[in-house]
């Protein structure tokens, strides 16, 4: 099936109000997702969160080098390319975080001695980049038909100096924040799969609870976009 589905969804949490696009309190930016847009990878997806955009491609299950082969499960590899310049140490660190999150949900034991490669290309970065990468990776894995035990999503939140929480921060909000926390949550039990933080803070639970509430919207968006795609065929 070569059809593309472009799904737009404006997601707002109950408290988000105001004439400005981001009211005080919790609200996520405009989401958009496009699947099956590249012809060579087995699965591909482009995920947009506000102005942040990441393109993901998945190859797999495919041939694996004997040195990287694991006898009873698939070898997962993640490659993250920044928008400008060569990949550096920060990209390696993010690749490790995304890879471990994918490994926790992908049913690798169904495809032993194969490799599943997720390639992420940053198209534009306007805040919450790691969360957007996680969402794009999940949508691309679904598009490729890789068996998974759950879907996962990334949610970023920023804590500013007076303790207010902002979900899905823009680059400006991230720079001014005291701390930026990114969580990866699974769709079945909203369990915490991965967490990466930057800055000084003291209250993790409040941020985690807000992220879990926001993840519901992201999963609803996944479900709606997939329903729309498969109902056409």
């Amino acid at each position: 099936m070569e059809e593309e589905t472009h799904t737009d969804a404006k997601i707002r949490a109950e408290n988000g109000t105001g004439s400005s696009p981001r009211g005080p309190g919790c609200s996520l930016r405009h989401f958009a997702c496009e699947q099956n847009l590249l012809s060579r990878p087995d699965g591909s997806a482009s995920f947009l969160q506000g102005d942040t955009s990441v393109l993901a491609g998945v190859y797999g299950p495919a041939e694996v080098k004997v040195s990287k082969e694991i006898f009873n499960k698939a070898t997962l590899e993640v490659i993250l390319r920044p928008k400008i310049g060569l990949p550096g140490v920060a990209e390696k660190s993010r690749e490790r975080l995304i890879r471990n999150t994918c490994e926790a949900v992908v049913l690798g034991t169904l495809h032993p001695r194969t490799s599943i490669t997720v390639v992420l290309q940053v198209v534009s970065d306007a805040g919450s980049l790691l969360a957007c990468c996680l969402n794009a990776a999940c949508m691309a894995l679904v598009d490729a038909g890789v068996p998974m035990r759950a879907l996962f999503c990334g949610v970023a939140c920023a804590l500013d100096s007076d303790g207010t929480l902002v979900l899905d921060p823009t680059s400006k909000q991230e720079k001014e924040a005291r701390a930026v926390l990114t969580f990866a949550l699974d769709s079945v039990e909203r369990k915490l799969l991965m967490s990466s933080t930057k800055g000084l803070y003291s209250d993790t639970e409040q941020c985690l609870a807000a992220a879990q509430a926001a993840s519901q919207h992201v999963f609803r968006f996944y479900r709606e976009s997939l329903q729309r795609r498969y109902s056409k065929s």
Partner: protein
Amino acid sequence: MAAGFKTVEPLEYYRRFLKENCRPDGRELGEFRTTTVNIGSISTADGSALVKLGNTTVICGVKAEFAAPSTDAPDKGYVVPNVDLPPLCSSRFRSGPPGEEAQVASQFIADVIENSQIIQKEDLCISPGKLVWVLYCDLICLDYDGNILDACTFALLAALKNVQLPEVTINEETALAEVNLKKKSYLNIRTHPVATSFAVFDDTLLIVDPTGEEEHLATGTLTIVMDEEGKLCCLHKPGMFPPLQS
């Protein structure tokens, strides 16, 4: 008998110990290994420290050099950490460019320095816009037996406390820097971040200071870095590995 069981079913062997709330090396679940620190052993470095957490050994050497500051931060110096995991420390590392584990550890240490504000970068400024100090912190692992992140953070903190910078004045006539090696002063360390790593077993049990074997058997790891005021500098949870049984 026990050695045979351990080779064939390492996870089951381990679970037998966890049921009794202890570990094969005799420690409690919340107990750290014996920690030793040796400060100032490298005379050619401006600051150094050697940390041993059980068998895990990490040495940190700090060298201070001059650099020109960047134009968007003319009064800030640099702190550049680099973690090296040579083939000496473990059979799983090969010689060549830094592998993934070394790069992740380097990024982790860079994040800890940035987040905890251990050194105010303005303190490293000699002459705004012209000359600043850059501290190259090289962390080399000599023996890898798990919990590398805790050992590296500790070694870095100890080495930075040991660093002595000479006094530098800029001669107005020649515009050259004059270094007075006789007058040295310690760095102003503002906070003392401490890292604690945990291994997660079967999604429920948390074990402090995992050894190499425990890290391999665990479902996931978690590292928390806190400063003395109880603020969290870093919560590093790089995901869960899928349970072996599924």
